[in-house]
């Protein structure tokens, strides 16, 4: 049966426009094309679209929002609200922010490394949260966030901005390349320079975040009411400095100019292997040194809460959230390492078959 639509048999413009809006941008071209090809009648087209779009959206969400990244972003958005608002009042704005982030990632054209795009994403999320609060103000004023939490959310969004700047999306680096392995020196050099740019940027952001953490933790260190908290904040501040120092002492060596294809392949493969090794051992050099500070801060906060007769559950939530973030961070690093390893394997295969080898 020939199901190709003629010029007369095409979906009604309105239905087609609605369907087009609902299909995520990265797969819109071929999905709408396929739906057009299967067109028989407006009703069948609509039914076909309704049966297709949910799968396409879920698949796109799975690709653009890996669980580890989502957990870390949820942590960044939630933590500033909790002290002033509590879980009940924070639930609606936090959920709105997360859903907006997920849908924004699924529907945007492509993931880029630009800070403007990250700022736009965070701006859209903040706007969605404000709209949600406006609706809450009308529907259930008792659940409205206090002003203190609204102001604290600025810190959350700043943290979200840094996180997304550092982790623009899964496999951004690997997905930039359509070919399995660069066959020419020019293509390889382009790939290497992009990789170097991405790594340098990541190192720069991590260094700045480390210094900011070191300075930021000085304030609670000076104000801490008990010695456990003071030691915890001091260790946290030292951890920030350690991260910054680690980043400065582990720079990426740029590929020298004038290498031939085979040497450039070997050099880049070695650089990728070094990065994979760093990502695979991230729990050891990145997360573990921060653990004593977090443990002492949590113990100090729990002790303080017990002394003042306050509930202990906020400390328990912070413990659970910190553990989730650590697990998500380690899992995300391993995922990135796996993607890089796939690239290394592709390069090894290409290197063995390519023109660089006898």
């Amino acid at each position, binding site marked *: 049966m020939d199901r190709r639509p003629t010029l007369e048999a095409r979906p009604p413009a309105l239905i087609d426009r609605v369907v087009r809006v609902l299909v995520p941008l990265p797969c819109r071209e071929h999905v709408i094309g*396929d739906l057009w090809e299967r067109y028989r009648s407006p009703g069948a087209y609509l039914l076909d679209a309704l049966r297709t779009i949910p799968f*396409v959206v879920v698949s796109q969400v799975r690709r653009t929002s890996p669980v580890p990244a989502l957990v870390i972003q949820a942590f960044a958005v939630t933590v500033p609200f909790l002290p002033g608002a509590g879980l009940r009042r924070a639930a609606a704005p936090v959920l709105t922010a997360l859903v907006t982030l997920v849908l924004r990632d699924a529907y945007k054209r492509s993931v880029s490394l630009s800070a403007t795009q990250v700022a736009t994403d965070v701006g859209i999320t903040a706007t969605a949260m404000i709209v949600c609060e406006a609706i809450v103000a009308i529907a259930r004023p008792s659940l409205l966030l206090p002003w203190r939490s609204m102001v604290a959310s600025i810190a959350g969004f700043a943290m979200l901005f840094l996180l997304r700047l550092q982790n623009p999306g899964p496999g951004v680096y690997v997905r930039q390349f359509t070919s399995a392995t660069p066959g020419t020196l020019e293509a390889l050099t382009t790939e290497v320079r992009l990789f170097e740019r991405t790594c340098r940027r990541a190192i720069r952001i991590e260094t700045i975040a480390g210094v900011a953490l070191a300075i930021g933790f000085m304030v609670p260190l000076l104000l801490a009411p008990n010695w456990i908290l003071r030691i915890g904040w001091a260790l946290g501040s030292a951890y920030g400095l350690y991260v910054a120092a680690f980043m400065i002492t582990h720079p990426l060596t740029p590929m020298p100019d004038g290498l031939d294809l085979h040497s450039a392949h070997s050099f880049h493969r070695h650089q990728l292997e070094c990065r994979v090794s760093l990502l695979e051992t991230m729990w050891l050099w990145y997360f573990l040194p921060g653990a004593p500070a977090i443990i002492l801060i949590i113990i100090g906060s729990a002790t303080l809460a017990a002394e003042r007769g306050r509930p202990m559950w906020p400390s328990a939530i912070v413990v659970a959230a910190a553990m989730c973030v650590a697990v998500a961070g380690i899992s995300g690093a391993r995922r990135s390492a796996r993607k890089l390893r796939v690239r290394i394997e592709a390069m090894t295969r290409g290197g063995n078959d390519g023109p660089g080898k006898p």
Partner: protein
Amino acid sequence: MPNSESIGQFEHVVLAAVLALDDDAYGVTIHAKVEELITPKTVSLGAVYATLDRLEDKGLVRSWLSNPTPERGGRSKRHYRLEPTGEHALRDATIAAKRICDDLERIWGGDVWTAGRRWKPVRQH
């Protein structure tokens, strides 16, 4: 020899469809081929897309956009092709399925397809 990526039953069918269609493997044709392979069951086009995305993420297939065609409102097709790892995974999954089939033939005796049908009335007694 390294182990191939493990694939599910539906992924197996989709990989087989992509392999069978060769240069003509894109959303609509893959969906039609999958429905042909799993007859009398039906499946939505979206489920095929989701599986193709997953297979692409696993590195078992690769895709590219073709030139736009007028009968699709000037839109491109996303063509799919099996990667060597995909063929490897497909071969392994097919060997496993064949082994299951052979075993069932031994249990039921003779041809598994007719035996399956013969067996049903016996269970109803």
